[in-house]
């Protein structure tokens, strides 16, 4: 699975999709779900919570380890994906479809500064050994 080119990315392995209404949808990448293994719990942030860029705001817990998910930009959480409660494994089977939370960025321009697919791939390649 290659990194979809219509998304933005962070160096901490989140993907970001800009929606028509200016909100963004956030999940974790194929690379991240592969490293973590079978997901068993997701703790998503509550709607209304204000986040700073790079703040820990969610936890994805696999059989192997718990990993923090970081806010890609500053903003306010608008929704959490309730479907993940009963089916956390969709993060493994469909990492770009299984979103974790949505938020309204404080500054739309911040999203443009995130990594594109090629730059994210470079991050992944540099981690490989």
């Amino acid at each position, binding site marked *: 699975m290659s990194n979809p080119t219509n998304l933005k990315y962070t160096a901490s392995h989140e993907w970001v999709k800009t929606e028509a209404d200016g909100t963004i949808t956030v999940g974790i990448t194929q690379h991240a779900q592969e490293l973590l*293994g*079978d997901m*068993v*719990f997701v*703790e998503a942030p509550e709607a209304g919570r204000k986040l700073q860029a790079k703040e820990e705001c969610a*936890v994805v*817990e696999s*059989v*192997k380890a*718990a990993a923090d998910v970081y806010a890609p930009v500053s903003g306010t959480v608008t929704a959490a994906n309730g479907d993940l409660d009963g089916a956390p*494994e969709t993060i*493994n089977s469909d990492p770009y479809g299984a979103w974790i939370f949505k938020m309204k960025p404080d500054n739309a321009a911040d999203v443009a500064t995130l990594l594109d697919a090629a730059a994210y791939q470079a991050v992944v390649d540099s981690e490989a050994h």
Partner: protein
Amino acid sequence: MTLKTTPLNAAHRAMGAKMVDFGGWDMPVNYGSQIDEHHQVRNDVGMFDVCHMRVVDAKGDGVRAFLRYLLANNADKITVPGKALYSAMLRPDGHVIDDLIIYFMTEQWFRIVVNAGTADKDIAWMKEQAATHAPKLTITSRDDLAMVAIQGPNARAKVWQVLPQTKAATENLVNFQAADCGEYFVARTGYTGEDGFEVMLPKEKVEKFWYDLNKVGVKPIGLGARDTLRLEAGMNLYGQDMDETVGPLESGLAWTVDLKSKRDFIGKAALLANPPTKKLAGLVLLDRGVLRGHQKVKTAHGDGEITSGSFSPTLEKSIALARVPNGVQIGNTVQVEIRDKLLNAKVVKYPFARNGKGLIS
């Protein structure tokens, strides 16, 4: 550092394994979903590469008496040929060197299987003790042997499909009993809480054996599922649930220590002189999350610590073994510190699952 490899390394990679460094060995942690692999073993059959574990043969006159002295469990318990016994091997101070299984084959031959990470230490200790207590014994590390575990309700049938020549000698084996079938040593033992066989065979034959099993429908299972299976079955893992800093009585192993007979064994005096103040308890997490090793446990009787924790695919809850103060009882609610929060867990009797079924409501 170059990792050690088993003869099945190429086969694992060909089967799509995700390989990891497991105590210095290049081993498969999964071949896809470790949760699927877990269910596969509980419901059907799966195979594990356990070549990294070590087979040791102790031979000669007096081997039974030597093992009676060396081990915390009593070798005299096994008198039917092929019968196996699980035991801890202790230091004179009563702490655990390793846990292992011995098989009584003849009065001149006991086979011993020890853990991978402790094998060299174990063998050196056995030889040192034999030098003074049983100098005529030979203790041989069987580096020529490989081992595969086939586990699950359909495991034995699959082994017989691939090794039909072993069926007559093995179809009446009871649980915890082995048969020497020439090139194949077949034991009805395992580390999953399911039925099955562990097969020891010459290293040159193990790759074909692995592929032959795969051809009759046996799926490969990685170390990730091996850990969730053994934890559900309430089986200890040396290095996590016990090590050289603790004794068997604080590690859920009292049932394997024979203190009743007059027999002397290494560590007996220390055990009798130092009654334990802690014990191993089973925990089920009541809140959402995953219990993991080293998390602190807060109880009405003082603090404890999780030794092994994970997610139980059979129960769909998180479970753990924890070392807690003696006063803690089954049914108590305790708190576990997870990422700066205190989550509630219940103390339960374990094993948590066996023979395909969860045992905890």
